[in-house]
């Protein structure tokens, strides 16, 4: 499925590109309201039309991409920087008390309905993009910790690790120098998937008003604003949803494609 990888990467990079360009240039300033031009259909001057304040939807999509990508990426970052070391540590000390505690702690986080806790966190600490990042990021920790441990365990039995031990390297050094490089591919694939889940989660949180706050544009927020207008101006509601759909679809296809690329054995089994 090379095709999936190409389409997926293309979609993902289009949105990431839009997000980058938005720092330098957007077609219209989204903080100036232009009520005279409100709810305009897509046209040459406004490619995707305008919203109920007359703001250019294409510009808002560009800036919204920035918000979504930043929140989801940082949430993945939290998961990787805390989860991977925990998983490596657990695998190095497999079977001991601390390993048990780390893994049970992970199970516990898994047992919580993530959306409920995200709502709780953002409700308690106030609705903001930063709190959304933390709320989403917490649930990425056990994902990466479990995956790292599961992938690292069999590596500890391998000969190259054994010879490293014979050389007198410490567990920490072996984890970083020998185990980590061998699980990077797996982490990239999982990172892509968590990235796409993060985009969806950010959209849900800002849709219910617990994510990025105005005037920061975000896709979920745009959908919330569009909800009451859906019968008068459907395009206002269609465009942000399509943006989320395409971005998530792109990341998922890219993740699947990367997995097949890194591990051709899985592909043979599946098709």
């Amino acid at each position, binding site marked *: 499925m090379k095709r999936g990888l190409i389409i997926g990467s293309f979609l993902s990079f289009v949105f990431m590109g839009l997000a980058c360009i938005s720092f330098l240039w957007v077609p219209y300033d989204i903080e100036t309201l232009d009520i005279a031009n409100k709810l305009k259909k897509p046209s040459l001057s406004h490619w995707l039309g305008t919203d109920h304040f007359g703001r250019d939807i294409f510009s808002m999509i560009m800036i919204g991409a920035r918000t979504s990508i930043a929140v989801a990426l940082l949430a993945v970052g939290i998961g990787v920087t805390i989860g991977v070391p925990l998983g490596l540590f657990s695998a190095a000390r497999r079977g001991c008390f601390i390993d048990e505690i780390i893994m049970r702690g992970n199970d516990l986080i898994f047992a*919580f*309905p993530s*959306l409920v806790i995200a709502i709780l966190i953002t409700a308690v600490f106030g609705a903001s993009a930063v709190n959304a990042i933390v709320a989403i990021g917490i649930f990425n920790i056990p994902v990466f910790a479990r995956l790292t441990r599961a992938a690292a365990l069999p590596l500890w039995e391998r000969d190259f690790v054994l010879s490293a031990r014979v050389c007198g390297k410490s567990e920490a050094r072996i984890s970083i120098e020998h185990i980590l490089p061998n699980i990077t591919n797996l982490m990239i694939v999982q990172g892509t998937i968590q990235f796409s889940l993060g985009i969806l989660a950010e959209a849900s949180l800002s*849709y219910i008003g617990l994510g990025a706050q105005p005037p920061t544009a975000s896709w979920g927020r745009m959908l919330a604003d569009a*909800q009451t207008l*859906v019968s008068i101006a459907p395009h206002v509601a269609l465009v942000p949803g399509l943006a989320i759909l395409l971005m*998530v679809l792109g990341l998922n296809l890219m993740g699947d494609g990367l997995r097949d690329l890194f591990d051709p054995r899985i592909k043979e089994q599946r098709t």
Partner: protein
Amino acid sequence: MTEPVRFFEVIRYTLGRLSSLIISLVIASLVIFSVIEVIPGDPASFMLGINAREDTLAALRSEMGLDQPLAVRYFDWVIGLLQGDFGNSWTYKTPVSELISDRIWVSLPLAIYALILSTLIAFPAGILAASRRGGTSDVTIMGATQMGVAIPNFWFAMIMVLIFAIHLRWFSAGGFPGWSNPLQGLKSLTLPAISLALPQAAILARIMRSSLLDMLSEDFIRTARAKGLTRSQALWRHAVRNALIPVLTIIGLQFSFLLAGGIIIEQIFFLPGLGRLIFQAISARDLIVVESVVMLLVFTVIMVNFAVDLAYAAVDPRLRSKV
């Protein structure tokens, strides 16, 4: 293995799961309680407004038990929960248990309805895709599941309202008429249930397919084929039944996603369920309601996971040793 040994193992497994269940519940309650405690803003001054006198504030605080030490309040809360007493809502002035029992008759049926829909969609789709591996229907179904996983369900809900409520007028755009007329009630839950079920159905169909494909490469399928069964006969008679084990586990776990996911869908369709209750309680700083509803949801999820674990071990004895 003799029977008494087996019995002992079952007991040991169940006790092991039970102790981790209790630990999970205790930690969950501690987390929820302490998160709620750090909510900025004193609920008493929030309820009385900024002009409240200091002595009225103090009176209300002691009435709500806010002047007690943290540990006392925690134990009061937990003991109350165990006795089914969730405390009194500060804004509604009614017992929280009443508020919950009113609303659970929307949230629970919605989750079950969505679960049934998701299973009804996913089973045929997954089986068809597996039996036509690599064919047109497989590619189409897998493409559709990719879309299903990627669509934000609240957006899908808006699109369905646009099509089926606003344009075709088959359903109402929101609200819930109650269960006095069960058909009307069910009808008003249909669009919400479909939008909840869609992403879950997509995930379930993919798992059904890959679980079936795993089965199809097993020896017993080869034996069945060798005995003269066609590929699809072998699939229906032998593979589907065995593939159901992992799929049933996922269905159990999905129930909790559906219950929690209903929170957002209830907002879109103006359904008076637990989700709307949480939101109203958060904005009114009615912490006792937030606390209890969140704890109830977490409790349900942990219990469902526990039940799934036990059921899974009952079906697949190999897992018991991995406690």
